[in-house]
């Protein structure tokens, strides 16, 4: 394992979801220390917070509630980076309740953390296969500091059937049947629909950008 580069406190929120280990290993490969935790104080005191997630929004929100982390996460002021479902949990709501949610039934809407004012909807893939699974290119990339060194046309690994539509909070887009948000951000909250921890060298670059980000860089945006 590489040497430890900083003394900043990085945490991965233990949402009870399954990809915690791969996110932790990705951070450690860059030479940073990181703790997986659901301890309220550790999360509040961290310099950087990563919110990972795979699976369904319903399941993950239930876990977050059971751990009394809803208001803790909502009140964080340090930079927070969500991956995949972690990004989706930052929005107002998701229609990804359970398997039957493909029926477009509003009764299946799951309230999320409401940190970025947008809503997660089924990906409009047209005639394409779902889940949207594999390596796809970014079709637009903003100058947000999380994307330093990343350009349009770069490939990232996506696995999802739900997505955030394009909005004023979109900081990168991707196309699969229709254009959707590959990443969204508001203030200190940043979310990527793709999996940086599984996106080879460019994914590592995004994690590194986040860990090296000065919080004031986000204030200026």
């Amino acid at each position: 394992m590489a040497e430890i580069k900083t003394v900043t406190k990085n945490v991965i929120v233990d949402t009870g979801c399954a990809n915690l280990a791969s996110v932790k290993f990705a951070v450690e490969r860059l030479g940073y220390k990181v703790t997986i935790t659901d301890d309220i104080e550790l999360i509040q005191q961290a310099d950087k917070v990563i919110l990972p997630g795979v699976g369904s929004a319903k399941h993950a929100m239930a876990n977050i509630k059971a751990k009394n982390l809803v208001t803790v996460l909502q009140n964080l002021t340090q930079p927070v980076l969500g991956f995949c479902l972690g990004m989706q949990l930052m929005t107002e709501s998701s229609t990804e309740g359970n398997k039957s949610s493909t029926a477009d039934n509003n009764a299946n809407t799951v309230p999320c953390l409401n940190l970025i004012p947008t809503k997660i909807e089924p990906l409009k893939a047209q005639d394409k296969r779902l889940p949207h699974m594999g390596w796809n290119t970014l079709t637009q990339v903003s100058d947000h500091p999380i994307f330093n060194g990343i350009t349009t046309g770069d490939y990232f690994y996506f696995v999802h059937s739900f997505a955030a539509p394009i909005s004023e909070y979109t900081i990168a887009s991707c196309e699969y049947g229709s254009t959707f948000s590959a990443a969204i951000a508001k203030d200190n909250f940043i979310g990527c629909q793709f999996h940086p921890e599984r996106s080879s060298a460019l994914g590592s670059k995004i994690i590194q950008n986040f860990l090296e980000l000065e919080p004031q860089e986000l204030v200026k945006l």
Partner: protein
Amino acid sequence: MLARRVIPCLDVRDGKVVKGVQFRNHEIIGDIVPLAQKYAEAGADELVFYDITASSDGRVVDKSWVTRIAEVIDIPFCVAGGIKSEADAKEILMMGADKISINSPALRDPELITRLADVFGQQCIVVGVDSFYNKEANNGKGEYQVYQFTGDEKRTQKTGWTTFDWIERVVSLGAGEIVLNCMNQDGVRQGYDIEQLKQARAVCKVPLIASGGAGTMKHFSDIYQQADVDGALAASVFHKGVIAIKDLKTYLKEQRIEVRPC
């Protein structure tokens, strides 16, 4: 644009990568972690690890290598073998695998697919289908039939399912991806079974991965172009250095197939 995936498959037995011909006579190829790392660095889009003995032995796969792989590679990987329950799946996913693949346990208990998809999400539930073309079947008209316990020659047996019926069934139960292993082609490097994969494609609404038969770079371009599969899996051509992933991707790009650069 979504890239077609090139997926080296590592058959694992007792922590070593092995390869047999038509599911038999396994020879040791090498240690699992350095091979995984080598393929990730070479430009593989994803890796699949099959513990080929697990299901047929009725024992649980030795899983310690899953964590060791997750530590070193930065591309997605899938683990198959002996996953029979939500608890088994959770353990593998918690160790850092991105997907789990089930095969024989899904045949014994199809509802397992739904239970796994509900808990972990459809995207990480892959169903592997071992399909054999029996030319005598169906009154001599020939039929694609699903087999189980293919890791052990002595226990390998035909199921009551035809391949395309089974694919439709597992997709309706919540499978997020199908890997279709065409057993007649496995390990003989004569090309993927284009006809079978085309028919599978027609009934498969989720990502479909071709497996069995890769021998040349043209076999890859043929299967992407003619059967519209999302990914192609291969073992021996990569393990034995017959095809380098970098060369393969350069070739595929020349054929105007969308691939991620190495």
